[in-house]
């Protein structure tokens, strides 16, 4: 598709208004990220709810994330848990009890690697959705990832569940509506027609800078986006170059974010700066690997979960040790984090680790007192009995009902592919 393009900021800056415009772009004092946007704020976009998806790559073990601490709900799940996980299972004294009103009867707790998430849970900011899976479950990393990212079980996925949201929203090429921080443009942000963008971090710049020599070249590179649709791969490659030129223009003056040893924190703080800018950014995707714990599971999973826990904490509430201030109250009221993973793991341990399994819990973290209903949602999956322990966990929640709840109640854009949203997850 051709069509005329809006005037770019570089062209704007090379005009007579450049000198007048520059002082508003710097310095970046006060709230991080404020006022580096190239365009005026649009109330229709700055008021959007924001969704941050953190993908736990490798298949996070759900049973050591939301841990049984006693037989409850008329089951033997704690007895089975200790029986089939004699070395990697947690003792009740080692984990962080889930103790919101009504929780006591369920006797569940969080991994000791999740202290910040546990604190947020107690503050009424976290919903735990249990036993999430999809029909015709696959034990393959790759089928599982595609299914979770597309929300299209039992068919060959053709788009991401948020990519279809971008289609319905009609986002433009290079528009900062959905951003993946990292190298990949994940399936979750690929629609049938539209897609999000990805970036490695901020600020963005070309290696040759943006002085006149670069400007002439970058303006020319932008023309690659006009490539004929008769060759879709080349057209897509050209559009991505065009988007990149636009992104660099928009983000070359973005403030550099603090760099910590935690890559997820770095990615989420980058996302936060963009969310605080005035781009209309709505969806963010970050991925962390390290959950494929076939062996030496406990230290590996605690390391990976701890990384996520620390990052979510820093994202919302700050991390003083790394000079990261809390998120503004304004943004906090409109921002929700969601975790997911391609599968949970087998019920029983195997040589200090666990093989690929089925259903697992996911977390939603949002503002206290907002639309998200905190606490436990969905039933804990059935572990069977000590005489007949389950090999794999039977799912209790269809991931599509969770997605539909988020789409309908948080992004206000339900997917016509889906049926009813999960009841009770949002007020």
């Amino acid at each position, binding site marked *: 598709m051709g069509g005329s393009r809006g005037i770019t900021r570089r062209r704007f800056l090379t005009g007579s208004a450049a000198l007048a415009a520059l002082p508003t772009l710097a310095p970046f004092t006060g709230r991080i990220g404020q006022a580096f946007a190239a365009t005026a704020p649009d109330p229709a976009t700055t008021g959007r709810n924001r969704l941050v998806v953190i993908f736990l790559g490798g298949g996070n073990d759900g049973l050591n994330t939301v841990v049984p601490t006693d037989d409850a709900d008329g089951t033997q799940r704690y007895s089975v848990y200790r029986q089939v996980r004699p070395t990697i299972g947690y003792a009740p004294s080692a984990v962080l009890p889930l103790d919101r009103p009504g929780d006591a009867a369920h006797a569940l707790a969080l991994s000791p690697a999740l202290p910040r998430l546990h604190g947020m849970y107690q503050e009424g900011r976290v919903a735990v959705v249990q036993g999430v899976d999809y029909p015709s479950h696959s034990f393959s990393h790759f089928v599982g990832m595609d299914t979770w990212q597309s929300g299209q079980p039992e068919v060959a996925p053709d788009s991401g569940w948020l990519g279809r949201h971008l289609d319905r929203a009609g986002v433009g090429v290079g528009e900062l509506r959905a951003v993946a921080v990292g190298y990949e443009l994940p399936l979750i942000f690929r629609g049938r027609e539209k897609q999000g963008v990805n970036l490695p971090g901020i600020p963005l710049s070309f290696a040759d800078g943006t002085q006149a020599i670069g400007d002439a070249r970058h303006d020319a*590179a932008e023309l690659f986006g006009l490539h004929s649709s008769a060759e879709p791969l080349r057209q897509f490659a050209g559009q991505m170059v065009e988007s990149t030129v636009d992104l660099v223009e928009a983000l070359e003056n973005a403030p550099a974010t603090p760099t910590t040893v935690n890559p997820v924190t770095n990615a989420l703080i980058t996302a936060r700066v963009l969310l605080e800018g005035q781009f209309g950014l709505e969806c963010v995707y970050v991925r962390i690997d390290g959950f494929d714990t076939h062996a030496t599971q406990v230290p590996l999973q605690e390391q990976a979960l701890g990384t996520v826990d620390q990052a979510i904490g820093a994202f919302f509430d700050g991390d003083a040790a790394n000079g990261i201030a809390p998120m503004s109250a304004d943004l906090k009221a409109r921002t929700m984090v969601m975790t997911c993973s391609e599968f949970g793991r087998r019920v029983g341990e195997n040589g200090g680790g666990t093989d690929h399994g089925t259903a697992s819990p996911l977390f939603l973290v949002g503002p206290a007192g907002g639309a998200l209903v905190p606490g436990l949602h969905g039933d804990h999956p059935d572990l069977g009995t000590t005489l007949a322990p389950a090999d794999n966990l039977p799912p209790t929640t269809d991931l599509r009902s969770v997605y539909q709840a988020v789409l309908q109640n948080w992004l206000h854009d339900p997917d016509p592919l889906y049926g009813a949203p999960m009841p009770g997850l949002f007020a």
Partner: protein
Amino acid sequence: MSDPIASRAHVARLFGRAAFGATATDLDGWAGKPYAAAVDHLLAVPDPTIRPVQTDEVNFLLAQNGANAQVAQQWWLARMKNTPYPLEERMTLFWHDHWATSVHPEGPPLEYVMRQNQTLRKHSLGNFRAMCQAMTIDGAMLQWLDGDVSTVNNPNENYAREFLELFTLGTFPQVYTEHDIREAARVLTGWVVDPGTGQARFVTGQHDKGDKVVLGTTITNGEAEEYKALIDVVLAQSVAPKFVAYKMVQSLAYAPSTLNLFTQPDPLVDDVAAALVKNNWEIKPALRRLLVNDRFRFPDAPAGKQSVRQPVEIAVHAAKIVNASFDDNSYVPPLTRAGQQLFYPPNVGGWPVGKGWISTTTALARYDLAYTFAIVRQNVGPLLRAPLPPSTDIEAGGGQWIAAMGLGYLRPTTLGALKSYVRSRRGQPGATEDELQSGVFILLATSPDWEVM
């Protein structure tokens, strides 16, 4: 098949996909000659086992530098650029991606993955069955997919699953069950890695000696040879040659649009698969069948019948064109940002394919990579330093640039971008001819024509 004559576009496509890109010399040398002769030239690779130099190279490298990831990458990039047998390196890269094994803090270390690299090169144009045997007990692979901790009491499913799913059978359609994976895992119990040598060693006491049933066939205890029986059972599945052929076509030619290799066959995949079967899994004749096929040869094949070049392919091509040396350490960082670090594929599924390589992050990194090569270009003398024609004539005068970049021709969009750049920059203060040439190089080296072949 008749005996077609190669056009410049055919040569650009063949070398662009299978040999890290054409040079002007390749285009001049092969255009007008029989196309199959160019293919056979690329396939004329002597048996790597009678060329012991690579072992010396790797040992020397490790002795001099220890396990230095950047030096190791520079070593392989230089080998890709300088080898007289680019197809061997191209296929070694393909198999590195296929059997994706990554250096990891929990193991395997770089030394193991570099030894695996030599194994892959040895088999790169050899026999796929022999490659399966070598990789199943490869030291790096045993550590990477937990084969080294898989025992009779705790058979680990990791390698068994990926062997079936990613390395031999695929999932379209999936012909194996979860039970087959568990049984295959039992077959593979008992292997450990010697820390000193990085070589596999069989420990009979850790091996499951019971019968296993995989894909309907009973495998009895065969001790240290038993894994070969498993490989034979798996490779006897009719989907196996189709899946391996699919992977070859996807990497070298285009992404076949099939969701089921039986009910939605792709003609090129079927052709290559038939060659694998006919030649008892010999790779070279199957690869020849792929490269001489019209579906590969025509660069203007129907929409989508092209593929996106990996960052490493692009970098090696650019290095050939400007005669850059990978002794210079400035290329690995932009390659890393473009998403491709040799010896560090992102996961066992390997690097992205096709459209998965194209994003705003990779576009930025590829631009920086082109800029890095453009700087080198300015230091290496007369290559790519032909005077540019006036902007209005660039199309007429651009032929030497197109040839110098190893391309057959340019699309109108790319030509339009070049014209725009020369028009707006020429005559500005400080705009030298050298700078304009550098700019044209960067535009060409970031264009859709260059990226998608």
